[in-house]
């Protein structure tokens, strides 16, 4: 799968026509990492969107087991709206290739293609709103199961 095909599959880039996507891919950095190579460290500014073209990325953190994202997954999407320091280190698990849309690329994209950029930001809002719905439903289901469990005791 080409980088542009992988980008087209992302909800963040839904409804974006080919020309702006081609521009993004042309401007993006493609970076290859070997197993264990560090992509970024905790505390570094989160100023880029990453799309995993090959391999996996591992996030070591204190909230639970290490989180692993696989080929075809996009992350760093909130850097479109604000730059926050990253909470943990990210490193390659196996040989990994990423497409990187850094802050400068995103800024230039917003200047050159304001309407598609606005769609990207709207897509981000749509994705986040959908996550909130899922979280709320999960919370409600867990509460009901907990109540049922308490009642059966």
């Amino acid at each position, binding site marked *: 799968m080409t980088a542009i095909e992988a980008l087209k599959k992302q909800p963040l880039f839904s409804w974006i026509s080919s020309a702006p996507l081609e521009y993004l891919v042309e401007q993006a950095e493609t970076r290859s990492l070997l197993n264990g190579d560090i992509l970024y460290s905790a505390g570094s500014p989160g100023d880029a969107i990453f799309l995993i073209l090959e391999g996996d990325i591992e996030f070591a*953190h204190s909230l639970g087991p290490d989180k692993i994202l696989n080929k075809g997954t996009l992350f760093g999407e*909130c850097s*479109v709206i604000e730059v926050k320091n990253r909470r943990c280190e990210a490193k390659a698990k196996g040989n990994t290739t990423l497409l990187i849309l850094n802050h400068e690329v995103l800024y230039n994209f917003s200047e050159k293609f304001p309407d598609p950029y606005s769609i990207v930001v709207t897509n*981000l*809002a749509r994705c986040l709103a959908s996550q909130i719905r899922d979280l709320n439903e999960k919370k*409600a289901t867990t509460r009901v199961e907990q109540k049922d469990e308490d009642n059966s005791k």
Partner: protein
Amino acid sequence: MSKDSRSPHDKLLQNFRDVPLFHGLPDDALLVIFVASEERIFRAGEVVVKEGAEGEELFLIGRGAVDVVINFGSTKQTTVGKLGTKDFFGEMCVIEPTSRSATVFATETTFIYSIKSSTLNKLYQIWPEHQTTIMSNLSRGLAERVIKGDPEYELTAY
């Protein structure tokens, strides 16, 4: 005591300037939204929106507090959020037509501004660039809520 020299118009607009959803918008855009909005007062216990109902308005809490609940009024009722002054809800309708995913009711006397999605669409027709500003602000607020419910999301979101 120092006298507030601001005009009544300026004082009213200040309510909207302070809302994170509208940060970065100039006063003329805020005025369009303000004039088209409707201010309503809800007493404690009154329902603002009902789960499953069709929605075409975004709500801003001018002052007060609300609970966001799923399965309202049933034995399965679950509170999934609490919102207060300057928070917003009903945001999905400004992104795409959809039914309300939860019931929201006032937990104290609450002043709420309702803003129709058509008002925002008209605003975008006049000033297309403001769509990006509002959607960025909206996403920022939503990202905070997602992280609150799922702290692991922050690990990969930035």
